[in-house]
């Protein structure tokens, strides 16, 4: 069987363990160096390595020469080889300031890579960084196989005040797992509200108002966001009973924004197009909760499976004033 190529996924370079063991050589090293150069504008380059420190140093040096900044750190000894990670770009300081935290989380992430999942950098927030795992063609059922992994990763995540989200996009879409590390004193803004009953609606909109004001949104946007959250919370309470709303101060396409994610495990929406086009009118409101949310948000995405629940994600960009 041919070993897989080092994967280049946007901003990240990965080398798989078996590949490294079997055919690491001057040629491959050169190829990776070339990729680092090619991805010069990328925010971060990451290499998973189980190979000798000398190889890593070479990579680290070439990244430094390109002015990207780099740091290596190691964690676990596996037989004769040691797990070493190379992180370059603006997040190199993370590896330096909290090598242990970084290493522990990376280790779990990389155990995923060996199961043929790819890793990429996404949603980079000042003071925090995120890595996203994607396995092409994975389906919801595959989640079960990774349950153990998620639990392990989650334990580490909790212990270190980082967040971890596992979700499956679309029916056979990529499995996405994101992990965030918050640096000391600069925790990335993230609020999770348990929405349960009327108080949950009031609580969530109060928090939404607080967070959006804190982030510096203008008065109209603050009302937009608060209204969106109120609608989403009400949908959760009325249709699913309870759920979770996550408010997150993040960056998308280079722009700071607030994302609101409303998740429930309710009956789901089977006629989503009708709901959004206004054909369907509920008996409980004006049948326009979701429609209003879509109009008020800059980005709007809803995923729902009948019988499994609904996830609505909206995003509001922070405009420069």
């Amino acid at each position: 069987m041919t070993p897989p190529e080092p994967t280049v996924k946007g901003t990240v370079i990965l080398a798989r363990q078996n590949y490294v063991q079997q055919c690491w050589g001057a040629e491959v090293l050169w190829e990776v160096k070339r990729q680092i150069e090619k991805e010069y504008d990328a925010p971060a380059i990451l290499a998973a390595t189980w190979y000798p420190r000398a190889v890593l140093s070479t990579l680290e040096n070439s990244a430094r020469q390109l002015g990207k900044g780099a740091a290596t750190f190691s964690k676990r000894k596996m037989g004769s080889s040691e797990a070493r990670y190379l992180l370059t770009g603006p997040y190199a300081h993370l590896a330096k300031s909290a090598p242990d935290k970084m290493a522990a989380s990376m280790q779990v992430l990389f155990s995923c890579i060996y199961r043929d999942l790819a890793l990429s950098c996404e949603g980079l927030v000042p003071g925090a960084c995120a890595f996203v795992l994607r396995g092409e063609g994975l389906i919801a059922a595959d989640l079960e196989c990774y349950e153990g992994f998620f639990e392990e990763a989650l334990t580490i995540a909790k212990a270190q005040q980082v967040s971890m989200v596992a979700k499956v996009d679309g029916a056979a879409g990529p499995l996405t797992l994101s992990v965030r590390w918050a640096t000391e004193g600069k925790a990335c803004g993230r609020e999770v509200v348990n929405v349960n009953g009327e108080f949950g609606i009031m609580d969530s909109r109060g928090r939404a108002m607080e967070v959006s004001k804190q982030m510096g949104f203008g008065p109209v946007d603050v009302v937009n966001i608060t209204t969106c959250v109120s609608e989403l919370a009400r949908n959760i309470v009325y249709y699913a009973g309870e759920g979770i709303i996550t408010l997150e101060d993040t960056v998308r396409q280079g722009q700071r924004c607030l994302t609101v994610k409303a998740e429930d495990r309710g009956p789901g929406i089977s006629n989503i197009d009708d709901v959004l086009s206004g054909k369907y009118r509920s008996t409980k409101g004006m049948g326009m909760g979701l429609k209003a949310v879509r109009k008020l948000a800059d980005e709007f995405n809803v995923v729902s499976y009948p019988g499994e629940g609904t996830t609505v994600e909206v995003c509001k960009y922070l405009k420069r004033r």
Partner: protein
Amino acid sequence: MQRDFALGVIPIIRMKGLLLVPIQTPPSDSQARQLLEDLLDAVIATGSKKLVLDVSALDMIDSYLTRIFYDIVNAAGKLGVKAAIVGIRPAVAITLVQMGVESFSVDTFLNLDAALEKLGA
């Protein structure tokens, strides 16, 4: 001025032939529903001919609340009561327009003075 009915945090104030309802914070859904019922009761009990909802303290009006206001104004209309909403904040007004709340076709006024003038104080 006399406080005849008080409901949670939403007072219903009777002044002459007018019922004034200053809504201080966005009410919970059940509070809002209760307000609808209590207001109509208050209208009957006091024989008021005018009803003014003051929403100048509200920093958010979502679709549910919009619906409740619409119901209050229209139900009051059925009882022969002129009802109006006053003091919608600019940011809230913009949001309502952005939401496309066409059903919010009730009489709204800049402030209490304007409403009283129109309703005939």
